[in-house]
């Protein structure tokens, strides 16, 4: 007891510790903002101490939800199966039509000597093992990292839709910022008319499941509700032709030149357990 008392009487007052830690935090902020010096080591350490636990919990959680879903869904699935069979018939007819068009397109392309623009991207699957701690942003951690060949700025998809972009990478984990995140911005394109627009995530719309779009120049009023929006070819980080979502609301801005509105994303961000990371990076001239 006496020893403890002796140590305490020599201890530094907490206001000085507060000052030192504040300076430490501020200098870390400046360092990580300007250089990459401290991000690397911290990310590596965190990767080996925290991520294994997260993976364990993630796997256990996935197993549990898998079991409960199995029980719940048998009835649903039989009904859905019948519906889907009907759809298959419908779609087979459409596929045949499209197939015919595709041959024609290939023929015309070879005539014009154009390359196929939207070839299949290489992808690797990853599991979501942790989501953003707070309520302000929407990003998550996946269980693949630089050891699996993942680099910052790689696009992340789920099913056929765009989920987001890799922002930071550790040895065995990576952080993905989703497109509904408030700080996300990307350049998109309306598939039917090739008009470009800006897609911005917005916290105020996150609950309703929308993302905002703006700066759409559509003089002929060709773009309508339900049109598909894909990533545009002029974006410098997103690969072209990945589905973002469908326009659900559109209106003219007060400047009478551009239009803005809401997009319903192609991906269900509330139930995101596995994602596909596109390992092709967009090549930039500079």
């Amino acid at each position, binding site marked *: 007891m006496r020893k403890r008392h002796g140590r305490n009487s020599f*201890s530094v007052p*907490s206001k000085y*510790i*507060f000052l030192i*830690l*504040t300076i*430490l*935090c*501020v*200098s*870390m*902020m400046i*360092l*990580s*903002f300007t250089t990459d010096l*401290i*991000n690397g080591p*911290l*990310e590596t350490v*965190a990767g080996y*101490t*925290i991520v294994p*636990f*997260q993976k364990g*919990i*993630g796997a256990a*959680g996935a197993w549990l*939800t898998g079991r409960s879903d199995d029980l719940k869904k048998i009835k649903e699935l039989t009904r859905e199966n019948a519906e889907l069979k009907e759809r298959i018939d419908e779609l087979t007819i459409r596929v045949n039509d499209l197939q015919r068009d595709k041959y024609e397109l290939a023929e015309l392309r070879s005539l014009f000597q154009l390359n196929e623009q939207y070839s299949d991207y290489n992808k690797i699957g990853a599991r979501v*093992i*942790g*989501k*953003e*701690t*707070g*309520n*302000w*942003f929407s*990003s998550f*951690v996946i269980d693949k990292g630089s050891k699996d060949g993942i680099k910052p700025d790689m696009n992340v998809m789920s099913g056929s839709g765009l989920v987001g972009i890799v922002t930071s990478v550790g040895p065995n*984990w990576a*952080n993905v910022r989703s497109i509904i995140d*408030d*700080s996300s911005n990307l350049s998109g394109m309306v598939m039917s008319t090739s008009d470009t627009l800006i897609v911005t995530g917005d*916290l*105020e719309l*996150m*609950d309703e499941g929308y993302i905002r779009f703006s700066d759409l120049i559509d003089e002929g009023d060709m773009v309508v509700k339900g049109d598909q929006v894909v990533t545009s070819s002029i974006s410098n980080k997103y690969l072209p032709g990945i589905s973002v979502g469908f326009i659900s609301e559109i209106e003219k801005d007060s400047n009478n030149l551009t239009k803005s509105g809401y997009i319903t994303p192609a991906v269900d961000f*509330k139930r995101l357990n596995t994602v596909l990371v596109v390992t092709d990076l967009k090549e930039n001239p500079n």
Partner: protein
Amino acid sequence: MLKKIVITLIVIIGYLLQTTFFKAITLAGIVPNILLIITSAFGFMRGKNEGMFIGFFSGLLIDVFFGKIIGFYALVYMFIGFVNGFFRRIFYPEDIKLPMILIGLSDLLYCFLCYIFLFLLRGKLHLSYYFVHIMLPEVVYTVLVTFIIYRIILFIDEWLKSFESR
């Protein structure tokens, strides 16, 4: 030494719960702030120094995985741990009212700091929306979760103290 190991474990478990378990059982898309409960609780139970260090490491953990720049959350959580340390003198373990009020106020402070630095500075002025839809639910949910988490932390803390006084 034992104290340090146990507190480190508490912080890591709190972080893991917040990113996995509580994210799976969100109410209206809102997660309670477990790391803030831990930081704040140790702040008023053990004093400024411990509050600061626990806050610093909790924040650093969030920074590494989710921060835009490293150091921001560390600073915010450290500040909250420090402020809670001032209330050590009026803290009695039996009384649950003070912890709940303090944790609620700390969470509100945390939300406002996040809003000011991460949203207001980017020109998002719609404070009333964020207050009703993000801050208020988070504070209410966090205070409700405090009922359970605080008792666990208190139990562990008393167990630690019994070790220290041996």
